[in-house]
């Protein structure tokens, strides 16, 4: 088990390193930030001086090594735009993103688990079709569109919900729905098909043959077996929500990492973009590691194998 965890952590470190290299090169292909920082009539000498101050005069590979070295000591540089240490900026914005992604994940599970389980038990029923329709709607609409519709209906017409910001717990509801509706279809489908398999199994029949009530068979005995594929899928979606809530954060003016990175990108604020993507990659790796570890909690065979 320890060996397994160590191996996964090591693999994760390589993923993070790879992500940092790619984003480092790509940001530098996007153009020269100094051009945006100085007025067009600034003298060439001043531009050169600015480049040197930011370390942009070095070859890209040397810049990368400097970045890596600094990052290892916890120094991610200073934001060109906000003029504050990038580390402080990230740590200020990251919790909001984790909060939003967790709320979105919770929303997606609250829909997809009952949808999938009940659809499997009553396959072909009106509920099965209803659940499929609701789930497909979320997959068919882009999340910014869902977000705009929610704002239009619940904030503007009904005035039930705040349209943007993150001041109260109610503020998270609409962005969480906009972000969490998309995976509902796939999660429902995977729970439904896993439940169909498990419900046909010999051990469910055995449980039934000794008089275990149907509800216990479905929600306890069968669901735990069907949960492993769900956890895998859920982990992937959670990781992508952590790193990819850009659009929803922008729509709802959510003070998270995604919106910060988008703004930094337009400003060619290299340190912020680099660190933002790096942290998204780290969150992604951690989420996947947690998924791997949770298998063992669900299924003792996996726990004992490792």
């Amino acid at each position, binding site marked *: 088990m320890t060996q397994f965890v160590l191996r996964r952590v090591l693999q994760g470190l390589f993923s993070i390193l790879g992500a940092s290299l790619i984003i480092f090169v790509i940001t530098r292909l996007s153009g020269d930030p100094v051009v945006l920082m100085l007025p067009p009539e600034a003298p060439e000498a001043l531009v050169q001086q600015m480049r040197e101050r930011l370390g942009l005069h070095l070859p890209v590979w040397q810049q990368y090594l400097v970045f890596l070295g600094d990052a290892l000591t916890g120094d991610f540089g200073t934001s060109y735009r906000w003029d504050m240490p990038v580390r402080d900026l990230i740590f200020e914005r990251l919790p909001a993103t984790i909060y939003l992604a967790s709320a979105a994940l919770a929303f997606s599970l609250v829909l997809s688990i009952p949808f999938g389980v009940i659809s499997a038990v009553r396959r072909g029923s009106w509920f099965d079709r209803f659940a499929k329709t609701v789930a497909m709607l979320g997959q068919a609409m882009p999340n910014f569109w869902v977000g705009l519709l929610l704002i239009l209906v619940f904030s503007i017409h009904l005035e039930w919900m705040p349209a943007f910001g993150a001041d109260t717990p109610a503020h998270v509801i609409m962005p969480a729905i906009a972000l969490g509706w998309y995976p509902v279809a796939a999660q429902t489908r995977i729970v439904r098909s896993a439940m169909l398999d498990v419900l046909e*199994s*010999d*051990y*469910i*029949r*055995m*449980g*039934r*043959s*000794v*008089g*275990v*009530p*149907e509800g*216990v068979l479905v929600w306890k*005995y069968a669901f*735990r*077996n069907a949960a492993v594929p769900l956890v895998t899928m859920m982990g992937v979606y959670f990781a992508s929500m952590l790193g990819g809530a850009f659009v929803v954060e922008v729509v709802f003016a959510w003070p998270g990492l995604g919106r910060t990175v988008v703004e930094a990108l337009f400003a060619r604020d290299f340190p912020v973009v680099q660190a933002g993507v790096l942290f998204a990659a780290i969150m992604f790796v951690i989420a996947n590691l947690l998924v791997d570890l949770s298998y063992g909690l*669900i*299924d*003792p*065979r996996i726990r*004992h194998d490792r």
Partner: protein
Amino acid sequence: MTEMSPMDHAPADQSRTDQPPVLDVRHLVTELRLRRGALRPVDGVSFRVGRGETLGIVGESGSGKSMTCLSLLRLLPRPGGRIAAGEVLVAGTDLTKLSEKELARDWRGRRISMVTQDPMSSLNPVYTVGDQVGAPLRYHGLAHSRAEARARAADALGRVRIPSPEARLDDFPHQFSGGMRQRVVSAMAIACAPEVMIADEPTSSLDVTIQVKMMDLYKQIQEETGVAIVLITHDMGVAASICDRIAVMYAGRIVEQGPAREIFRNPAHPYTRALLNAIPKLGEKSKRLYALGGQPPSLLDMPGGCRFAPRCTLADAKCLAAYPGDSDLGSGHRAACWRLSEEGAPDAA
């Protein structure tokens, strides 16, 4: 353990004809509705099993043995499977008339239980053995606390001769060997001391040496509790070793049934004879191993007359025209063959 069995111990060889049967199956018809049409894998099956008695149901695969089993507990595949006619009386109550809820609450696992074909897949891989063996006790109100359920689960594991049962309660099924898993499944089935236990090929996936041990174990449990056992098997040797009475099934019907000794000594139905001939005998330097020619009929295309007629060497026009009635051969031995009703036992199979 004494309070587990409300019944007193009857000697195994005592005549049981004077008491009513604990399991009385009457003209059971089971239907499976598929897209291609409705099948009747069980088509008019009747048998009785007394307390402390073991009935063996033998036959080829596809003869309807397992479907008969599943019908008794109403565990037929859903949707599509249903009992179309007949009665399943356990201690006088017709299980086919009960609601699903009543059946689960008062009967399944409590008064009639089942051990299924494959012990490897009959246990839930993500729950402990203690949890699973304790489940029937908890849901039938025989254990009122977690501690009591554990104690009684350990007791049940002890009765199926699992060494140091308390220590194994928190183990998971994958930590047991195949034979031990079958014991765990059996412990689940007997935990509430049911009156009837159905064992559907309980040993066919185990080693031969373990098969013998399991059969001995069932006999011991039967002597301790008086449980009536219905043993489904395709193995005549297993049937001979444990069964008091034997029913031979072919194509959804029982073609012959009677005391085990009678069936082995004086098989009356050509199909029973063919089955017995197919057993290789030790020390008999014989010709080729006997094998019955042909295939059982398809359930979708059942012959109109005797279902065995297409494979029977003695069949004539009458056999192909109509299904024969049961002939009483004395001491509970009955067989369904035209040859018996006309001119006594057929000469050769």
